[in-house]
């Protein structure tokens, strides 16, 4: 059974159609990358999956159950964690509080262990534990956003441009960690501008163009496609 099944999804803001019938499916335990230019509808698709925006048409199934029209907090409780565009950390809360909120739905008894585990993935957050999240560097904020999502122990992780605005070395570190947590069986759907980096870790890829799926296939195949190389990998 697939983790996520999106079919014929349509979504508009005002009069603008952001998604024009997108279908995609995610296999259990895979990393799937969503490629596409700005405005292709990648962020809208993630938001629709996590319930932040309401699609006008189509169907979304999580683990076989239709989640269409559910509020975001209810979708979260199914085991979906969405790290939004721009990280979405709570700047006025401390690192500790951000992590605690990440585990809002977790039993309080488990909290210390879960936070401890998230911190072992990102030791730098440990040093910043009681600082305000707003005072962290961009890379640290991205780590915090990821760690916070992991405290929820999700079954499906949605990542929106985790490498945006980060130094290449930090971006690689983030992707290494994504790879690492995925090994525990977590399914990941990641939107990424840095196609080269993303295709290295991904199992499968979708390419979105102006609200529609242009092509999709195993990451190794997509890497070889000429139009993808030209458009997203900078190969001429």
């Amino acid at each position, binding site marked *: 059974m697939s983790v996520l099944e999106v079919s014929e999804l349509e979504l508009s803001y005002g009069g603008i159609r952001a998604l024009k019938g997108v279908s995609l499916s995610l296999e259990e335990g895979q990393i799937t990358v969503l490629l596409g230019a700005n405005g292709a509808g990648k962020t809208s698709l993630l938001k629709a999956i996590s319930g932040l925006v309401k699609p006008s048409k189509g169907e979304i199934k999580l683990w076989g159950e239709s989640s269409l029209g559910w509020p*975001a*907090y209810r979708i979260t409780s199914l085991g979906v964690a969405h790290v939004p565009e721009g990280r979405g950390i709570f700047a006025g809360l401390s690192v500790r509080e951000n992590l605690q909120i990440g585990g809002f739905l977790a039993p309080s008894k488990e909290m210390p262990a879960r936070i401890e585990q998230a911190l072992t993935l990102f030791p730098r957050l440990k040093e910043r534990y009681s600082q305000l999240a707003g005072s962290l560097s961009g890379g640290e904020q991205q780590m915090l956003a990821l760690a916070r999502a992991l405290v929820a122990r999700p079954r499906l992780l949605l990542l929106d441009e985790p490498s945006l605005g980060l130094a290449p070395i930090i971006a690689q570190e983030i992707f290494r960690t994504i790879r690492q947590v995925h090994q525990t069986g977590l399914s990941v759907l990641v939107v990424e501008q840095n196609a080269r980096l993303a295709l290295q870790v991904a199992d499968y890829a979708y390419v979105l163009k102006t609200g529609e799926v242009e092509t999709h296939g195993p990451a190794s195949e997509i890497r070889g496609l000429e139009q993808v190389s030209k458009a997203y990998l900078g190969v001429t």
Partner: protein
Amino acid sequence: MSASYFIQQLINGLAIGSLYALVAVGLSMVYGILRLINFAHGDLMMIAGMLGATLFLWLSKSPLFLFVALALVAGLLGLALERIAYRPLRGAPEVNLLITSFAVSSILQVGMQMIFSSSPRRFETVAALSKLYSFGSVQIRGADMATFFITILSALLLTWFTRRTRTGIAMRAVSENLDTSMLMGINPSRPIALAFFIGSLLAGVAGVLWGWKYGQVDPLFGFLPGLKAFVAAVIGGIGSIPGAFVGGYVLGLAEVFFVGFLPPSFSGYRDVFVFSLLFIVLLVKPQGILGQSKGRRA
């Protein structure tokens, strides 16, 4: 100016500042989450005061019971208003919320006038609260001391609640970013209802304390203090709970010192001073003393 005059003014400022602070907390919490300026907030204080003035004779045996009961009534009323008037407007333009709160305020004021008439009512007090206690040449009324301690206690409790409990942290998260907090699994209706309940409860507390301090209440007494408490919340940094307390005290002290150190003929202009202060804060430092500077606060 003598030192004792200064200290006396300081104490007066802390007393009135405490009341502003108690009212400002609810305004600030609700604004922080919903971007709603709740004009009806001061009227919850008024309702607690009016009910207190009416019921005291029955309950005079136990002022503490009256105090708690009235605070709870105000809290529950705030909760009900959220449910009836504000919740249907989630996601509507900001202005609609503003207008609704104005309408709710009008209903509460006129409703109380219809029930109790618009004439002032005497607010009974107990000897320990109306007594003046002397410390050297400085005198403090019992009610003012009670007000000050209750306010400080509320500030400490609320700070503990928002920093140390899961619900409290969730409340701050919702106030900072509603969408992201939903992604954490928080159903925002709960923190919103809680903010209304706590804020209204403290407004109710302020209503009883107001009655004890001034000895009388009327159906219109809540509106202007409500507005001033909003000024206090803005000064302290709207959305911030510690900011509401700081802003309340800054405003109370500024107001009392303005009146206390200028010729008596200026005392009528105190509201001009208070609202000019609001102008200045809005223009110079709109994020307030303890608020975070953020584009979306505009």
